[in-house]
């Protein structure tokens, strides 16, 4: 049994809470939220003990591990407090707003030898995982170029503002949406190191970007582009597609489908020369509890298993998420025609 607490019961926090609540290896010992209506509903209808601040919760609930799902601007200070108290930490993406504070936390988690994970759930989706296996086994040869596309219907008209529309609180399409595809490219292709051109565009939002278009490159000269737009209402929900071109083939992958083209017959088992199309149901491993997607349960299983010492703490570490933070920072500070 792992004693787990959660800080921030908003949209992602509530989802984590339900998965943790149903988890056989988890005892949920405390929930922290500043909204009285949220804690009131939880106190009345669930068995979770609620707190209005993290310090009090740590004293009373004594968790082994803590999930942080607050607005991004609170991540750094909360995670620092948790690590200083010897807690294992799962924090939502993006990791930190400041690059230096992120780096400090990476070092601190290493010194303290604590399990650390960030909620980039795409790595727990079967199609992306299979793409990772194909690319890392060199089956499409040397990667030459990638293009990442993400679309969704978050801001499709002018409207009331929340923290997601405040740049200094971690809002905007770059922090909220593009972070996912940058992190996925770092994992599947190669860590991005150079930013050659950026357009951050506001379609409807008044103070943040609604779209990110950027020209990128990795250290080993793999070139690529990202097209990220959270203001496209023709998408029902967030959609992430990555195209990767190699010397021996090509991959087009999203969360439901994997299309692979091999130039010749020398390809992995289960694949043939030419186009191969596979669907998520071939890769998705059943989870013990499902809410919104296997990946949300799978990433929590992985974290809990790492705390229990059953798996290495190797996927979505603070360090890998900090690499993503660095590129976000570079894109944000690139001289652009951003009209904000």
């Amino acid at each position: 049994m792992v004693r787990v607490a959660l800080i921030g019961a908003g949209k992602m926090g509530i989802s984590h809470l339900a998965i943790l609540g149903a988890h056989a290896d988890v005892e949920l010992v405390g929930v922290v939220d500043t909204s009285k209506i949220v804690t009131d509903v939880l106190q009345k209808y669930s068995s979770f003990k609620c707190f209005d601040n993290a310090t009090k919760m740590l004293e009373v609930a004594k968790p082994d591990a803590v999930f942080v799902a607050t607005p991004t601007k609170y991540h750094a200070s909360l995670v620092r407090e948790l690590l200083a108290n010897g807690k294992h930490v799962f924090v939502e993406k993006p990791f930190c707003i400041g690059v230096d504070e992120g780096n400090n936390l990476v070092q601190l988690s290493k010194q303290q030898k604590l399990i650390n994970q960030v909620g980039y759930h795409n790595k727990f989706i079967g199609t992306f995982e299979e793409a990772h296996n194909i690319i890392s086994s060199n089956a499409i040869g040397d990667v030459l170029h990638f293009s990442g596309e993400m679309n969704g219907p978050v801001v499709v008209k002018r409207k009331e503002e929340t923290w997601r529309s405040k740049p200094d609180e971690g809002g905007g399409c770059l922090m909220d949406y593009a972070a996912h595809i940058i992190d996925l490219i770092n994992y599947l292709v190669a860590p991005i190191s150079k930013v050659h051109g950026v357009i951050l565009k506001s379609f409807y939002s008044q103070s943040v970007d609604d779209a990110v278009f950027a020209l990128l490159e990795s250290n080993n000269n793999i070139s690529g582009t990202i097209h990220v737009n959270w203001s496209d209402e023709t998408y029902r929900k967030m959609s992430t597609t990555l195209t990767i071109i190699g010397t021996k083939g090509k991959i087009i992958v999203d969360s439901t489908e994997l299309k692979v083209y091999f130039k010749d017959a020398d390809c992995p088992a289960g694949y043939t020369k030419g186009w191969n199309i596979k669907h998520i149901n071939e890769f998705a491993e059943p989870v013990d509890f499902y809410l919104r997607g296997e990946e949300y349960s799978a990433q929590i299983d992985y974290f809990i298993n790492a705390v229990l010492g059953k798996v290495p703490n190797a996927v979505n570490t603070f360090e890998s998420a900090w690499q993503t933070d660095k590129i976000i920072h570079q894109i944000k500070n690139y001289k652009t025609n951003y009209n904000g």
Partner: protein
Amino acid sequence: MDRILFGDNQFFGVNHVSDEKSRAQAIKFKEDTSILKTIDIAIAEGVKTFMCTTHERMIQICILIKQDATKYNNFNIYPCLPYAHKYANAVTELGVIGALKQYVPGNFFGSLLKGGFAFVSKDYISMMQLMIDAEMKMFNGIKTPVIFLQNVITDLLLGLGMKDLLKAYYDYVTKKYNAQAGFITMNMPMLLSVLESVGIHNPIICASINIDGFRMSGGKQLYEQTLETKAVRAIAMQVLSGGVTPPKQAIEYVCSLPNVESILFGASSRGNIQETVSLIRHFDKKMHLAAV
């Protein structure tokens, strides 16, 4: 419940195994008349029940159905509420309080907040009842003998351990709408135990049940065991695992399971509708003969 239920995912761009297909379907079903035409094909094949979300486009479809009372005289709708994306987007957009202000009808929420923070349990339950009524409005005048709670909400309440709210939903739908309450879930075995613990016996549960074990939380074996040993009126959905498993073996599998009272499927072409319906009838007959 009827043996065969016709679903609505294809009409609203929902496809669990292909984002690309889902977008193509959204284009195909742009007009309400093309949705209705496809429902008519299913009716011609002998399907009498349409199970649908409370997607905003259903308002217009319901109006069209009511206009042709003779044609849809024997036709049932099983509503599934709420259309969760609407609320999820509202929470992203407006926060929890803002979303509640927007969707709880009347000034119920505003006046409670103004009066200081003094919610009692009864208030949350009446808030939920108001939201159910708001979602059910479009079906006024249409037969809705079973009303479902969508899986995102069922499973959220299940994970949070809020079994009293599951029970409150069950009680309200039974009493107010003189209907049977159903639950859609991705966690059938776990849900069944929780429903039993609050005194709901032999419930209607709609869940992914398929030969591939796709979206069957806890595993296919646990589902089979649950169906064999417990009292449940199951509806199998995603029987074709999203349309990528050969239909013949997929349907033979679900037809062979005990306690699967109904099979829910969605399709957009006449050929696929006819094929699925006739395969279900074929294997039902075969199982029946084998049993005799």
